[in-house]
């Protein structure tokens, strides 16, 4: 799932507004990522985050054969 660095997060909630799968929610007034199989790694949350707090990292692998 996307990762949130709470030290960088300014709680603007832009990521919540753009997330189409409900993976990012407010829990006790804190932006929180919840586990869901519906996340398609669109990385829009990372793109809109103004502080770079939210990251969607990729593993890069070489296909065998």
């Amino acid at each position: 799932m996307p990762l949130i660095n709470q030290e960088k997060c300014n709680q603007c909630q832009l990521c919540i507004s753009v997330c189409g799968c409900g993976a990012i929610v407010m829990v006790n007034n804190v932006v929180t990522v919840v586990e869901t199989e519906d996340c398609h790694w669109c990385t829009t949350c990372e793109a809109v985050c103004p502080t770079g707090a939210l990251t969607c990292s990729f593993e890069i692998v070489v296909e065998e054969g």
Partner: protein
Amino acid sequence: MTIDVAFLKSISYFSGLNTTELDIIEKAFSEKTAQRGEVILLEGELSDTLFFVAAGAVKIFKTSTQGKEQILSIARLGDALNDISIFDGGVNPVSAQALGPVVLHGIKKDRLQGILQQYPKVALNASRVLAGKTRQLLTLVEDLSFRHVLGRVVKILLTHAGDGTTPVQRLTQQEMAAMAGTAREVVARSLKVLEEQGHIRLEHHRIVITDKKSLQEIVAESA
């Protein structure tokens, strides 16, 4: 409908104005909302209202005749969406689409022209905003024009690729952009191009290199 004066104050166009001036300008604004995925502005159409983002995020993009999309920027709180077409009177050079629920504050072109004449500070602010946008777009043009950016992105992929059995350092598109010395939008475009050409496959949080030899050739050609 009341537009928040504090919000107007936060917009670059209106910085440096006093509360009395902002109170007058505020009356020229109206509010509009858009839902996720809604197209707010369409490339090629005329605009009669300058929109500023009051809440949410808006994707600013161009679409090629083949239907391919190039994101130019993400507009956030206080950003203007269509100042180019408002100022030059031409059609929208870009499209704008809500990435989630969005609130916009808009001012009609003729009202804006009156404000620009009445408050030279706003005109100066506008020229500064437009100069900043020109600078950002020139950087993007440079990156999109020169093949070496694609080569740098490919080199990053090859350098950080694992065999799938041992853990390797994971990278975000933002990190790849920082490494390649370019914008995140250019990395996103480069990855799409590489996928379309069959060099890689984008999977759920994985970039799979399907043709390592061809990627090595791209790096060699761009060196």
